């Protein structure tokens, strides 16, 4: 399978008065064509920063190194002018809180037409409107939505409208940032099914699905990447991540999830003691060291950042317990 997006040693920092917050600090991953790539992690792990920075590197976010190659172009080094062309046409996003993403003073029709005209000057206004209406109908919205203002729509409807707008020009990659987080279970399922349908119909080739909820990823993702405190800790196909996790963090995270069939009175689940480190001044070595029950080689774990290695074909993990050099240490 061809790689559509290849991200190497990519770093995005936040510039603050106190210094740099290393929110995304040297991540490596790739997204294949025609796949749903899930990114999971707790709040503050850098997953949303990563997703947003690939679309629009807005201050106080600052590019701090590495590359992100999309279709042979390193978009991490693009000027704002060139990136403007890529955005929406090649790579698009459904932002977190998408419901608030639309101007309340413009009709949906005008938002759609303005946006498309900015990118594709050949399309006539009528074609644009027809295309949008066709897509709206596909997901159960009536064409009348075009003449409404965003404030007239319910939360679920807004989410769908944004979903249609984001994919109108058939981008290669769609980044879906926490699109299910604020929704009820039945709407979560609906959103995920819509995304799958868009992919089936080739409106988008690949989806990067960012969420804190691994059980939602289990439903849709082909592969999952787990992030912790700005680092990638593990990447594998979905089944392996949930049933045979390697990294101690992934293991603890999966085991802390409530599942149907488990009740407090019979079996108590446990969370992960402790809290993630402050990324203004992150620890020198493994960022999970403080909370890690394993610490295979304490000296090394505390002082050296474990690299992301391919442990077995297609399985990547960043933990000293799985590096070759460490075999002799135990």
């Amino acid at each position, binding site marked *: 399978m061809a790689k559509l997006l290849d991200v190497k040693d990519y770093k995005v920092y936040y510039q603050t008065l106190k210094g740099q917050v290393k929110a995304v600090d040297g991540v490596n991953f790739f997204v294949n064509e025609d796949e749903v790539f899930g990114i999971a992690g707790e709040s503050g792990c850098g997953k949303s920063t990563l997703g947003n920075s690939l679309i629009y590197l807005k201050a106080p976010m600052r590019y701090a190194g590495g590359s992100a190659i999309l279709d042979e172009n390193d978009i991490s080094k693009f000027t704002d002018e060139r990136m403007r062309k890529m955005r929406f046409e090649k790579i698009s996003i459904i932002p977190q809180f998408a419901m608030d993403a639309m101007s309340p003073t413009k009709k949906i029709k005008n938002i759609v037409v303005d946006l498309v005209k900015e990118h594709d000057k050949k399309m006539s206004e009528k074609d644009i409107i027809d295309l949008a209406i066709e897509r709206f109908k596909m997901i159960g919205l009536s064409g009348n939505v075009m003449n409404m203002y965003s404030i007239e729509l319910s*939360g679920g409807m807004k989410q769908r409208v944004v979903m249609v707008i984001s994919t109108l020009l058939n981008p290669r990659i769609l980044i879906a940032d926490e699109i299910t987080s604020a929704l009820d279970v039945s709407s979560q399922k609906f959103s995920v099914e819509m995304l799958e349908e868009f992919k089936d119909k080739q409106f988008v080739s690949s989806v990067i699905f960012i969420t804190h909820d691994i059980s939602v990823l289990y439903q849709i993702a082909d592969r999952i990447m787990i992030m912790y405190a700005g680092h990638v800790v593990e990447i594998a196909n979905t089944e392996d991540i949930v049933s045979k996790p390697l990294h101690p963090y992934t293991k603890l995270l999966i085991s802390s999830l*409530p599942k*149907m069939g488990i*009740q407090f009175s019979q079996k108590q689940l446990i969370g992960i003691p402790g809290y993630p480190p402050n990324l203004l001044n992150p620890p020198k070595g493994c960022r999970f060291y403080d909370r890690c029950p394993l610490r295979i080689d304490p000296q090394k774990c505390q002082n050296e950042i474990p690299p992301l290695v391919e442990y077995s074909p297609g399985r990547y993990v960043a933990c000293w317990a799985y590096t070759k050099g460490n075999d002799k240490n135990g």
Partner: protein
Amino acid sequence: MSRAGHTQKGMIKMDELIQVQNLTKIFKSGLVGGYFTTAVDDISFDIHKSEIISLVGESGSGKTTVGRLILRLLKPSLGKITYEGIDISTLRGKKLKEYYKHVQGIFQDPFASFNPIFKVDRVFDLLFDSYLKDKVGKKNDLIVESLEKVGLNSLDILGKYPHQLSGGQLQRILIARTFLLDTKLLIADELISMLDASTRVDVLNILGNLRDKEKMSVLFITHDLSLGYYISDTTMIMYMGNLVEFGKTKLVFDNPLHPYTRMLLSSVPEIGRKWKKSELEMKRGEVPIGGCPYFDRCPLAMDVCRKKPILKELEKDHKVACYAAEGVKSDDSIPVGKSHNS
């Protein structure tokens, strides 16, 4: 403390803490003319001592309104709520203060519960100023002890500002307060929805321990069924202001009888179980006045459903409001429209 368990019906067991009877709340919106929304529609249930009862529903189901009514933040339009046999709407002055000592609420956003310009200690100071004047002498020890009970080290907490702590820590501080107050009932409205997976279950476990060790009751309001399943003894499923299913948690989840509960359960994302592709959810486009609230979306709707079903106990400790679940049969199944759910 007031006497326990006397009610006008006289047949109630001794361990009811709260009784909700025919509770209804209608909101009026709009300035002129306006329209009415029935957020809570004639519901009745009891909260027993040392019971965790989850109230599950989607957004707009009225679950938060129920919590706010019990906390007396809203006035019921009809019906009443009694606490240990006394109608809470009659409480005034000292009695009301006593009620708030025993019935406390914690809400979804911990950062909104704290004033950002004060240190977190203030939430304890306020308690001692107004509720615990007699215990001011032992204030420090009591605070440290209550924080320990929720798994927090006072050295990490006291003297900090809310932004220096995590959401999970802040929620635990609020739970710690209930130890000091000797709270009997905690209204936990989406208490852990904003917390990360790794800290969520710890807070749930604290609730479980509160029940087992302190004999506290919790009304656990949530939209997340798996969390409700994990922690609660009893589950109530709410749909558009109505209780549609109600019973022992295991019975409701293992043998869901209402079509709405079944739909919810099948939509819960679970590891190890892939969602079945849903059939396009149809809407009939009508909810008959005085009919079943789920009529519009129900795959099993019949003509008889135009009259609202009442909660019936179909097996021990398991009530459902649905004719189809009762076994009422009818040939006149009602065709559904072609439009999508919106």
